[in-house]
């Protein structure tokens, strides 16, 4: 099963052309600057807007093709809007039952627990916090048992504190959902934590698409050139060092130690390594406070600004980024294919 989406989206001056075949599982993030057409694309997939000449197909169901246009209520999509859009005249329970009854398929209880809203069922939406509203909106969308979940910047209307409150629930959903998710966001942090696949749109088309780790580390794209450039590693907890309170993480291409947060051995853990936290050396330092050294091979370099370069490094099947000064790059005689040791100063555990 996969999602095929082809569109010429036009409205006044705005135009966006896409031709995508997206994974039928996991979270696909759609990112780009505001005004690039992220939301328009999502609305077109849901059938909320009609665009001439489009094609949408999920698995075996064709939703739009030539003269065929399946209206949104017959598509089996779950949609989470930026502003939750709960029905103010119904309780939380009534909101959740609205789609569940119409879909005619029971069982939303598991989502209620996962999203932590079991205790809110009798409340009216007007009495909920912004974070609670978004969680209810997600539960409501999932209660209708959709075949795909579409989320339009579900955290954008929340302040930082609320965002931090909802993000863990989203991450938990990520692990539990068996349906594909399209997640529109311009927030690199959210994407790094939630997405598996990334579609970057801009300049009226698709700038890049691919596995999250690949797109984030492509030096020709704005993500890797920015100050917050980072690489994503999917690791497994291989062991725990109780004496020093550290956990040993292994990944294709190396291993590293991070503060032990009680995650069981054998569990998967996604970590983020910022380019500015990776320094390069020609050989492993014998005595250093830096615990994590990864043997890697230089893949390519790119100047970013006057004095700095960003270097992409291959370690097994993974790619790391390092941001160093142009002078260091010359002193180390960095070039494609050169063997190098990447010293990682800090790692963010994303969960």
């Amino acid at each position, binding site marked *: 099963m996969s999602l095929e989406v082809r569109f010429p989206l036009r409205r006044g001056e705005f135009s966006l052309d896409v031709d995508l075949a997206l994974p039928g599982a996991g979270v696909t993030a759609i990112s780009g600057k505001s005004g690039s057409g992220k939301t328009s694309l999502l609305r077109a997939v*849901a059938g*909320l807007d009609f665009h001439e000449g489009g094609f949408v197909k999920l698995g075996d169901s064709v939703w739009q093709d030539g003269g065929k246009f399946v*209206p*949104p*209520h*017959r*598509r089996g*999509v*779950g*949609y989470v*809007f930026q*502003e939750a*859009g*709960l*029905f*103010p*005249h119904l309780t939380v329970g009534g909101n959740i039952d*609205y*789609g569940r009854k*119409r*879909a005619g398929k029971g069982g939303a209880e598991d989502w209620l627990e996962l999203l932590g809203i079991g205790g809110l069922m009798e409340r*009216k939406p*007007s009495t909920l916090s912004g974070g609670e509203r978004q969680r209810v909106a997600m539960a*409501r*969308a999932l209660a*209708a048992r959709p075949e795909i979940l579409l989320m339009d910047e579900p955290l954008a209307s929340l302040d930082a504190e609320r965002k931090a409150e909802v993000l863990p629930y989203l991450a938990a959903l990520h692990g539990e959902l068996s349906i594909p998710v399209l997640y529109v966001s311009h927030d690199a942090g959210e994407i790094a934590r939630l997405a598996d696949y990334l579609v970057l749109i801009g300049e009226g088309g698709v700038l890049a698409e691919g596995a999250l780790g690949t797109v984030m580390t492509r030096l020709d794209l704005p993500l890797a050139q920015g100050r917050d450039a980072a690489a994503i590693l999917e690791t497994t907890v291989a062991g725990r060092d109780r004496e020093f309170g550290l956990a040993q993480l292994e990944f294709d291409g190396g291993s590293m130690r991070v503060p032990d947060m009680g995650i069981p051995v054998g569990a998967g853990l996604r970590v983020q390594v910022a380019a500015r936290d990776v320094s390069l050396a020609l050989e492993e330092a014998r005595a250093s406070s830096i615990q994590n050294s990864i043997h890697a091979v230089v893949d390519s370099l790119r100047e970013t600004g006057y004095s700095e370069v960003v270097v992409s490094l291959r370690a097994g099947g993974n790619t790391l980024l390092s941001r160093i000064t142009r002078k260091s790059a010359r002193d180390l005689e960095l070039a494609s294919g050169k063997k190098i040791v990447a010293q990682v100063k800090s790692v963010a555990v994303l969960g």
Partner: protein
Amino acid sequence: MLSETDVAALGVTLKLASVTTVVLLALGTPLAWWLARSNWRGKPLIEALVALPLVLPPTVIGFYLLLLLGAGGPVGGLMERWGVGPLVFTFGGLVVGSVVYSLPFVVQPLRDAFAAVGRLPMEAAATLRAGPWDRFWSVAVPLARPGFLTASVLGFAHTVGEFGVVLMIGGSIPGETRVASVAVYDHVEGLEYGAAHGLSGVLVGASFLMLVGVYFVNRRARVVAS
């Protein structure tokens, strides 16, 4: 205190206002829904037509309805051919006149209420498997409820207060087309101030209570919604 004919006039008024309100809700709801959501370029034309009874003297409306519905008029003639007889000087004619006269008082609150519902809840309902008819009844109507209340009461009250249109097309047939406002006029003409006082007092009291009711209920609805 009220004479038998005055009670009959109040009865006709009550019946006329009730029937008119029901007809107006049935016609006004789809019209208001369309006005709230359509982007058609010619929409201002329809909006102006709906608002026209607000600015026209009731006698002008009555005059044209008289021509239209009378035996020689296009509608009246058609009805005569079908064997229904002309509508002028009948209760049915009063209903037609009142519907035209009170149309804006029902359509405008409904249109504003539907517009206030916004697109988001309707789109959310669509992604939750509700078809157009379903989401109209399950989302738009409940959310526009204060608008329905305002529209009903204004349509009813405005029909109670109607005078000019009735006089032109209804005459003053006791028990049939003689409404309370016309009865008051007749009393004053005949210098029967006592009878005019009685009937007028009833109208003032009833209208005031009705409006107080609306404002109270609408305030509560706003407090609940916010």
